[in-house]
């Protein structure tokens, strides 16, 4: 059995705003093992970033607060450790790369100084040593001419290079857990392919657990071992990627898969979008957040959120539709014609 790095149970993070209480994350649970990649997928506002920020304990308070649940990192409860300890953990054990690298790169300092500073702070290396390590790290993430480039400022880097520099900084302390929050959303696909390659290589070398946050089901299919599908702050379905892609049990997952044009489609197939608009988190029903848009909604759905149901080992779903009924509905969906469980 691989080492369990992270166990998040029933996490709830809410924001207390003047307009009301936003349940940005509501009862979310997942685990991450060494060498494993978890994909968190969901549309804008579904709570992906807030989940990651909660694990990092970087939720701005006020207005936000983790109101429930536990986050256990290698046996240690991260919600119980002091601010100082947490800051240590962030440097050494759990690292995060953000969608916009400029949120963690300071425009007025050289890239090299910024990476070296992190190394100095967390590993107590000398100035010289940490500078040399910065050059090595830049080389490792594929920055050309690292000896030269280490002296440059963030604005002298392209978007892809900045993202590489962020990865260099994140892996500088050899973290167990790397959280990548839409690391390539702003980048072109050929650059995205380079960055994904770097992340895979880093993971193979350091045996880290990776949490890949994205709205792109293609990226999840390419990178992840397992996936958690979020909507309106809730997990609706999670499991090994093959389970979720070929044996999906939640109508929202079906909807996502039906919404995607596929590059490899040979016959043009009409997309089957999810009707309606994304939910307003202030007006979410007490029950399933997808009720209101769900084609198969029943009277119970909006009132109460369904309990976790395991459809296969490791594959869980929250849905009121009886399992046999779900399988029957799914068999008639065009997006599942070529998508059969093995």
């Amino acid at each position, binding site marked *: 059995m691989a080492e369990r790095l992270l166990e998040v149970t029933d996490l709830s993070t809410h924001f207390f705003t003047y307009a009301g209480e936003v349940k940005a994350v509501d009862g979310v649970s997942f685990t991450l093992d060494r060498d494993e990649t978890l994909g968190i997928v969901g549309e804008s506002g579904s709570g992906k970033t807030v989940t990651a920020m909660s694990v990092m304990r970087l939720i701005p308070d006020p207005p936000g607060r983790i109101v429930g649940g536990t986050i256990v990192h290698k046996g240690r409860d991260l919600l119980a450790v002091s601010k100082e300890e947490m800051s240590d953990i962030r440097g050494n054990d759990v690292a995060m790369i953000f969608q916009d690298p400029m949120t963690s790169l300071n425009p007025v300092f050289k890239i090299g100084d910024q990476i070296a500073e992190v190394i100095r702070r967390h590993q107590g290396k000398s100035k010289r040593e940490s500078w040399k390590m910065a050059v090595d790290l830049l080389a490792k993430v594929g920055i050309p001419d690292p000896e030269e480039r280490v002296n440059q400022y963030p604005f002298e880097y*392209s978007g892809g290079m900045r993202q590489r520099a962020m990865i260099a900084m994140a892996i500088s302390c050899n973290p167990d857990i790397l959280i990548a929050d839409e690391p390539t959303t702003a980048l072109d696909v*050929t650059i995205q392919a380079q960055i994904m390659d770097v992340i895979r290589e880093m993971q193979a070398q350091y045996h880290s657990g990776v949490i890949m946050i994205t709205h792109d089901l293609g990226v999840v299919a390419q990178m992840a071992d397992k996936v958690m599908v979020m909507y309106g702050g809730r997990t609706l379905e999670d499991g090994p990627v093959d389970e979720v*892609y070929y044996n999906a049990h939640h109508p929202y997952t079906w909807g996502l898969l*039906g919404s995607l*044009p*596929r*590059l490899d*489609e040979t016959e043009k197939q009409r997309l089957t979008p*999810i009707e309606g608009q994304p939910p307003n988190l202030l007006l979410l029903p007490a029950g399933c957040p997808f009720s209101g848009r769900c084609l198969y909604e029943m009277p119970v759905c909006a009132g109460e959120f369904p309990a976790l149901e395991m459809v296969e080992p490791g594959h869980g779903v929250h849905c009121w539709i009886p399992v046999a009924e779900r399988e029957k509905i799914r068999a008639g969906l065009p997006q599942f014609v070529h*998508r059969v469980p093995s």
Partner: protein
Amino acid sequence: MSAILEVGDLKKHFPIRSGVLKRTTGHVYAVDGVSFAIQEGETLGLVGESGCGKSTTGRVLLRLLPATGGSVLFDGLDVMAAPRAALQRLRRDMQIVFQDPYACLNPRRTVKNIIAEPLRIHDIGTEAERKRRVFELLETVGLTVEHAERYPHEFSGGQRQRIGVARALALNPRLIICDEPVSALDVSIQAQMINLLEDLQKELKLTYLFIAHDLSVVKHISDRVAVMYLGKIVEIADSKLLYVKPQHPYTEALLSAVPIPDPRTERKRRRVILEGDVPSPANPPSGCVFHPRCPRMQPDPCTIAMPPLEVVGTAGADQKVACYFPTLYDPAGGSPASA
């Protein structure tokens, strides 16, 4: 079918000015010799990475920006030389929908006024007729008459994009340039929009130039696809053919970089990972614009002259490529390079 739009050797070079005297010290070669034709009723996709010149191409076509050179014929009529009155007429036939619907919808005007604006500018119909037309358009794009008196900020991104489409349709155009119309939308909303655009095309016999950087979307909606790189079209082909038999090494890399939402397919794929970044269009490489990142580059001829966009080998007239060393497929079949 006949060509509704014919573009020949289109160029747009933006001057770079610097110094106190703002002298021109160089140029951004945003669009640099682009040629293609669009048949009436078809969708031509224009795909390529950020900064390759897609939007500039669209704007120059509509004369929203003056061209540096080249020709554009709409229905045989010379767009570049059209006098004011003719241009006015052309502007009714050719419309554009932008990526960010918020940026181009006046926040202080109601949806009704926004959609009726082109009608008013072109002095079409009475107030009552315009109102009826607006209601009709709202329904066409999947909104309702109740939406007419509201303001843009009251709508979601997907709904605002529908407002943009309704306005583009107001004058019954024949060609719509869609510049990243779904790029800012969530996948579920994106799919609604794609279906809407497809339905409108069928119903209203529209022709689209569909600009986007997402190859899966472009391939899905387009009959043919043109791949741009640094201001040039490097390959243009029937969209299925482009996926199955790409000839340009850049097309191959682009195709192989797009993740497919199918884990088993992903595990089987061979990936071509390009090195380095796209060079600056202010300082494009000599010869073939792709040569610095190209795995097949030979100093002679690749660094010397840009290869012409032409039919190569046994490829049919549906596929043109600008490469000295294109992938050739044997006519009996050939395997997809990116599967």
